[in-house]
């Protein structure tokens, strides 16, 4: 009843191939965009913007990148945090040292990361599965070493570089809402691009490789071209996400932020959100951003209100509880809901399609 698919009469191929063929989806998308652009920055507090909305956007972009590679092209990568680090340091070096305008610095960071990423994607032509997963781990470790040891990039042992004051054509980006807008515009544009890419020849080729690479090669899809392209596009997204981490989230590039654990967390976002779904990348990122906050709040409210558990729930245990819940959730989603939170959204749609009638 609420989710109506009837009454949409398509008379041309163009309308049939639209990004959002249903008017309801179009309205829904427009409402989300308006909400994100007009409501959030004016009504959200500084805390909400800085510690929830901005990280959510940044990690959505990173998850989107990995989802393109894993969910659509079927190539597992455990080095995504390393690719983000490349983007982060590329942004800082270009912006701080060579006065490249901010949008160009972010784009350039994406491009550099794409080159690095496709280099590490080259083995995917000969090896696959676990062997490939391990070889992408190599990317993570080699990138970490290069960044900490090459002084030209990171400036020495501690390898933390602050970015200078953000500015674009005389406009100073220093308040939280302004930074939020920068991230939002980039994320919306890149998400729409990804959504479109998946409907194109390239997206279909990736999905055929994911479903069965030998068969897709037989029908004439170049494995070399599309596998390397998948690594390039995916690392482009990771690079821009890394650039955003520096530009609008932390304000500095620090190698500690891009360790192996982040790679796993991004993979977790993709699994929990839904592999092979653009929406899923956002849901997964939202979930992972909110999870630690939710765990903190619930444990501290239990220990304040019901019983004094501060002796039981030491900070050590809280940090470990987060790991345990994260691990359990990955297993839960793989076993029970392999399509992730995105599938939940489809279930809701199915329900609303018929409501209030049972069938």
């Amino acid at each position: 009843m609420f989710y109506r698919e009837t009454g949409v009469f398509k008379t041309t191929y163009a309308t049939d191939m639209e990004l959002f063929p249903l008017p309801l989806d179009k309205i829904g998308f427009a409402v989300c965009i308006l909400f994100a652009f007009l409501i959030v920055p004016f009504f959200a507090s500084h805390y909400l913007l800085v510690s929830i909305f901005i990280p959510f956007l940044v990690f959505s972009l990173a998850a989107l990148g990995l989802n393109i590679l894993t969910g659509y092209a079927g190539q597992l990568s455990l080095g995504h945090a390393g690719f983000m680090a490349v983007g982060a340091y590329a942004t800082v070096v270009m912006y701080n040292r060579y006065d490249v305008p901010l949008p160009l610095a972010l784009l350039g960071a994406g491009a550099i990361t794409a080159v690095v990423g496709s280099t590490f994607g080259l083995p995917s032509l000969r090896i696959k599965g676990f062997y490939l997963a391990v070889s992408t781990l190599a990317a993570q470790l080699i990138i970490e070493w290069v960044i900490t040891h090459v002084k030209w990039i990171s400036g020495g042992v501690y390898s933390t570089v602050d970015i200078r004051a953000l500015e674009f054509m005389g406009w100073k980006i220093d308040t939280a809402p302004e930074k939020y807008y920068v991230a939002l515009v980039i994320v919306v544009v890149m998400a729409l691009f990804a959504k479109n890419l998946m409907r194109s020849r390239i997206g279909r080729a990736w999905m055929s490789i994911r479903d069965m690479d030998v068969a897709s090669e037989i029908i004439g899809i170049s494995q070399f071209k599309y596998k390397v392209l998948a690594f390039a596009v995916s690392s482009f997204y990771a690079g821009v996400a890394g650039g955003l981490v520096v530009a609008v989230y932390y304000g500095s590039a620090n190698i500690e932020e891009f360790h192996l654990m982040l790679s796993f967390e991004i993979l977790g976002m993709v699994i929990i959100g839904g592999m092979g779904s653009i929406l899923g990348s956002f849901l997964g990122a939202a979930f992972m951003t909110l999870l630690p906050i939710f765990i903190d709040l619930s444990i501290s409210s239990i220990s304040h209100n019901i019983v004094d558990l501060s002796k039981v729930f030491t900070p050590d245990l809280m940090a470990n509880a987060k790991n345990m819940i994260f691990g359990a959730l990955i297993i839960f989603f793989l076993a029970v809901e392999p399509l992730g939170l995105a599938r939940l959204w489809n279930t809701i749609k199915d329900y609303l399609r018929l409501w209030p009638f049972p069938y």
Partner: protein
Amino acid sequence: MWDTAFFALELTISGLLVGLMYSLVALGFVLIYKASGVFNFAQGDMTFLAALGLAALSVKLPLWVGVIIIIGVMVALAMAIERIVLKPLVARPPLVLFMATIGIAFFLQGLAQGVWGTQPRGLNLGVADETYEIAGIFVSSLDILGAIVAGVLVVVLVWFFQKTKTGRALRAVSDDHEAALSVGIPLRKAWGITWAIAGIVAIVAGALWGTRVGVQASLALLALKALPVLILGGIDSIPGAIIGGLIIGATENLAEGLLGPMVGGGIKNFFPYLLALIVLGVRPYGLFGREIIERV
């Protein structure tokens, strides 16, 4: 010139001994892969759990009681993993099972530190850490013990997989889950047995490593050292794990000792991966791995 050569020899020998310890961890991976086709990313965390448990128990109890309790814990853990994680994932793509073991890894690390605390602990096996000098080269007694244990373990495991009925059943399961089921091999029981064996290998590796470097969270990162060993040797080959471990141990030590000073050190972390990548370029299934032929 002679100095450098001697130094290189020394590096090689200490590297080979460390490499055997890597092999022990890699062995856990190979066992589970051989017997169930699952690439178990949690092996490092199982090693950590076993070592931390052993260290915590050995404070109050005699060592052998601790060992028995930990064996019980690892077997129970294997059964729980089989029931909770693997059962719902039967006949799903191998990569899904792999990602599930990443989940297990996170869970076990949280569990181990939640139960036994996060502070580093020492572990004493009752073996004195003495250094012997053999023809001018220093070798620690712990290293020799590790080498002997690794050797015995490998002989026993190879015998088990090649000669016993259970071992053959486990290899059949690894070949094809559904085909093994159809000839009457109890798949879930086979999985339980394998994970229990891998758990016991984790205890051995954890005990030896824990004595060497102390028991702390970084022990779980040992898995990161075992991974290049695996892909170098081939993930389904027990001799591959041993020889891969020896090669990785020796070459990383040589690289760190000879090349390290030139580029600023720390290349030990990624050198094994670089080596493994180069080998994969030539032999995509590792040195001893079985080549998989795909058909449409």
